[in-house]
């Protein structure tokens, strides 16, 4: 069965419409969404209503969580003071804009969505604020997939799509204990696991304005990273009309994302 997985729509309704059209053309039978429906973009309510009307299984993103619970990320989630300022501006705008039904919908989204041997999260199984970057060390990456109890972990959050295959291997765990010379080692084999980052529909960070998502075949395990052109100028105009900072439109048009990732991408805020 072909499935489509998308993430990080960020209130970009025009991009979402284009991706849904492309999914239809790819003949995907089911669609999953990895959250961040809102934030930065000009159409948070419209995006949520469309996702909801199509009954798309959706995991909660960090922006969705922040709109429900208030900004929970600490300062270190922002890579710079400027990014923090812009992030807070976008949060305040979105927070005023979303209607009660949308807020209620975002509140009930699960952190993790599982189906058979597939797991769907926004950031990582540990936190929807954590970035699973392609260069993350293999042990940590493998731990994240193992913790999800799945063979394929779909994630978003970084806004750059990638597929990472973690080959089968042998892990040896040894626990050091005080006053004990002999530390027993436990060895076990890990099967092949995969991390598939689906990129971003509405806020790309790959240097082009095009939306990205993934088509996955559950039988052949084939992955297709889709890049979809859409009328991004329409979204840019809507950003300006909504009174959002013009720099958001400028960055969207260049595929630069509105903000950047944190210095410590695996940082999990404990606030």
């Amino acid at each position, binding site marked *: 069965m072909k499935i489509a997985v998308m993430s990080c729509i960020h209130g970009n309704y025009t991009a979402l419409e284009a991706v849904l059209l492309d999914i239809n053309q790819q003949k995907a039978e089911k669609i999953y969404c990895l959250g961040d429906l809102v934030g930065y973009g000009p159409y948070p309510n419209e995006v949520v209503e469309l996702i909801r009307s199509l009954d798309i299984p959706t995991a909660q993103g960090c922006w969705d969580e922040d709109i429900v619970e208030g900004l929970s990320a600490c300062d270190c989630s922002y*890579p*710079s*003071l*400027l*990014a923090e*300022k*812009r992030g807070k501006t976008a949060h305040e705008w979105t927070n005023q804009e979303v209607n009660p039904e949308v807020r209620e919908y975002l509140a009930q989204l699960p952190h993790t969505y599982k189906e058979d041997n597939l797991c769907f999260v926004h950031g990582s199984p540990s936190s929807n604020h954590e970035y699973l970057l392609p260069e993350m060390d293999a042990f940590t990456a493998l731990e994240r997939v193992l913790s999800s109890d799945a063979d394929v972990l779909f994630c978003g959050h970084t806004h750059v799509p990638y597929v990472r295959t973690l080959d089968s291997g042998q892990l040896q765990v040894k626990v050091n204990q005080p006053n004990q010379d002999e530390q027993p080692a436990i060895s076990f084999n890990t099967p092949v696991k995969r991390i598939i980052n689906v990129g971003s529909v509405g806020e790309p960070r790959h240097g082009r304005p095009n939306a990205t998502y993934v088509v996955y075949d559950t039988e052949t395990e084939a992955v297709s990273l889709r890049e979809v052109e859409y009328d991004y100028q329409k979204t840019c105009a809507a950003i300006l009309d909504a009174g959002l900072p*013009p*720099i958001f439109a*400028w*960055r969207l048009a*260049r595929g630069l994302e509105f903000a*950047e990732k944190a*210095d410590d991408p695996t940082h999990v805020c404990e606030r």
Partner: protein
Amino acid sequence: MIIAVASPPGAGKTEWICQQIAQTNKPVGYFSPKTDSVPIDTIYLQSKYPQLKIYQTGEEAALLTESDQTITYIEIPWYLDLSGIEPLLTRLNSHRVAIIFPDANNTEFKTWADEVVSGNQVTKLTTSLQIHRGVLTGEILDFDSLATFWLEMTQGAYGEVVRAKGIFDLEDGQIYYGDFMPNRPELEFKPLNLPRWLDGRPVRKSGFEIVGNKLDQTEIAQTIKDCCVPESAISYYQQQVKESLATEPEVELV
């Protein structure tokens, strides 16, 4: 000897002066009129040549009296009217060097100069160039924010930029120099060899100068403001840097 240097923006006045200073053993002086509020080139040259004698506005008379022992370069900003500074240059009997791109039709500079030097090609020069100068008085900027702003600015987020340069005090106490021209990606954004400032707000000059078309000055000013470290965090950052520097091993170059 006094050498007056003029050129269109970005043709390479400071770069040429820098090369001349490097090639001489004589004492060298430097004067850049009408740049006292944001003396970017002055600070840049001072960081490279600490012995450089800097003349301020009002010290023009000293230029003449010391010209026997010193080679002094007068860097004339492109926006300064050459006829306006002519009386001073005549009084100082200065040698005039124009730096222009070989094929450029800069008849004004060619007529004015005693010597024409080949400079950088400057793109898209129009007669309606704007200049936006920002004076920073004690502001300390966050490096990552500044890097984001600099990237956005040089890629046209705040208008078309044909030339930009600036000096910025950062939270680690260093002063950074930024230099941009559209055709020169190798230009620098780097720390200057000047003492770190780690005791509150710096009492030294910093700022920027952006030349271009349709510059959104309000947005530039607001973004720079958003890059500034808040008062409450300055001493925290500076204390961290002090502690970090105190634990660094001393390295002696042999």
